[in-house]
């Protein structure tokens, strides 16, 4: 595998995009929403693109992160960082549990297991309406200022300030993901995806690797969920609904599962198109449906695959090769 240098041109491209987003888009909130879902899609891609594991449980982790961070702030008076850490810990824990049970099966059964756990989480959240607000969701979710040892470092009430906070977190996650892909763990995950029997024969306990992938994925997805709650000051029940899992998976695949930039493209496309089109035509999702069909028929590498193909066409071979393992 080529050494994928962490701070390479792709990382630079991401930094540029992060800086440009709030300027190009009509609102910082929209930009923040893109990054939040890009984070969730990135976590999904760790499992799907790199691990070969299609998980419909991502909505569960997203919802858990949203609810627990919000509850920690509302009932426990937790500050910003504590709430986020609680979300991440909860996400990691739930994902480990779900993962441990789901990886006992492979193929379509694995997918169905993640779906089953996701649905159970949804119905549980619906039932525990005293805590979650049930159908109405959790209202008035605070967005605390960034403080350290009681000293307010940055007030995050301003949308641009909060965007910057989200962007910094996204960048850290992105760089971390790059590092992870280039690590022994990352290379083994790819090997397991390619040929699990071979990986076992060569000495890897594949369950451990799949499980760690779940844990990390759940942790990051929960972080995204927590940030989303703070962004819109509200935790709707739909955060934990199956449709959230669907959307995250769709974004991941549309963006392209072959790289770490794909999730950002996919999230960007879905969120922007949703915003722009839903005002023009309430039935815009019909076009999304058409788009999905086109991707499966003609562009399986997703948007990133399209970008790579264009780059190759115009002789920018190195840009394309950089992402090959």
């Amino acid at each position, binding site marked *: 595998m080529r050494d994928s240098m962490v701070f390479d041109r792709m990382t630079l491209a991401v930094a540029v995009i992060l800086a440009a987003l709030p300027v190009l888009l009509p609102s910082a909130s929209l930009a923040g929403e893109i990054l939040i879902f890009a984070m969730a899609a990135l976590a999904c891609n760790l499992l799907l693109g790199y691990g070969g594991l299609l998980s419909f449980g991502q909505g569960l982790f997203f919802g858990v992160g949203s609810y627990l961070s919000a509850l920690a702030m509302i009932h426990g008076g937790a500050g910003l960082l504590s709430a986020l850490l609680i979300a991440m810990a909860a996400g990691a824990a739930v994902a480990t549990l779900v993962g441990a049970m789901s990886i006992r099966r492979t193929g379509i059964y694995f997918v169905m297991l993640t779906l089953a756990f996701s649905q159970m989480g949804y119905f549980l959240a619906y039932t525990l309406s005293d805590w979650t607000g049930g159908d109405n969701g959790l209202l008035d979710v605070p967005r605390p200022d960034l403080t350290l040892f009681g000293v307010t470092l940055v007030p995050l009430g301003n949308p641009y300030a909060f965007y910057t906070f989200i962007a910094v977190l996204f960048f850290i996650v992105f760089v971390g993901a790059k590092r992870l892909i280039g690590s022994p763990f990352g290379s083994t995950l790819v090997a397991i995806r390619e040929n699990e029997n*071979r990986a076992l024969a060569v000495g890897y306990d594949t369950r451990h690797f799949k499980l760690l992938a779940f844990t990390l994925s759940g942790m990051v997805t929960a972080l995204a969920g927590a940030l989303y709650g703070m962004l819109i000051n509200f935790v709707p029940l739909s955060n934990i609904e199956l449709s959230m899992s669907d959307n995250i998976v769709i974004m991941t695949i549309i963006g392209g599962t072959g790289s770490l930039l794909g999730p950002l493209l996919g999230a960007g496309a879905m969120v922007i198109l949703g915003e722009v089109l839903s005002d023009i035509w309430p039935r815009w999702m019909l076009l999304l449906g058409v788009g999905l069909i086109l991707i499966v028929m003609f562009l399986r590498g997703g948007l990133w695959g399209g970008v790579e193909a264009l780059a190759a066409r115009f002789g920018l071979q190195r840009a394309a090769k950089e992402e090959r393992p």
Partner: protein
Amino acid sequence: MSGDMLLETSDLMLAYGGFHAVDGVDLCVRAGTIHSVIGPNGAGKTSLFHCLTGGRKPTSGRILFDGRDITAEPPQGRVGLGMARSFQVTSLFQNLSVFENLRLAAQGRDGDRSLVFWRSVTSGKAHREQAEQVMERLGLAARARHAAGDLSHGQQRVLEVGMALCAKPKLLLLDEPTSGMGIDDIPVMTGLIAELGRDHTIMLIEHNMGIVMSISDRVTVMSRGRILVEGTPEMVRADERVRSAYLGEAA
């Protein structure tokens, strides 16, 4: 290095319901030797192999490797103990490069220590060097960056053996390494295995009698789940029972 028993099975049995695929096998593989297991189809060679590699749990009996009872050890654990295997039906990481295939195999010896996700793979110099050395030894250095799936069948079979080699094992278990190889490639494999035999213990399942007779130190003949005859290639070749087992038995 020779003299001690590296691998021993003790009354090993693998039964599928009433059918005994492996029916009380006491096998001994001496360290430093090339030991071949042959026999007609259905003799139980593959089932024995499954038990030795951890693919199937034996119904009864024991397997001792380097003095240690590994009967219940799962396949991924055996590599760490010094056993590595190749597959009869080529099973490589087809889309990854030859180099990466070997590097992963070398890294595999670390087992769970590979769960490290914060350090770059480049820091694992030992694995990369091991992969490079093995590539040289296999004569595949020129194809280092090619996808494993792009190699010719013969080269893929050689890479199969290379994957096992990267684990720096004490014992190499090779399952029909020349399977499907063309007449020109077989001598390459034969030479490779003979050369490897100088510093590894090798257990070989083979159908190709030419290889078996030319490079083995010891040959075990199986028939109907049991050991029929065991001895030097010459002894086995001359034995009447072996001849009738191959000719007389329904495949």
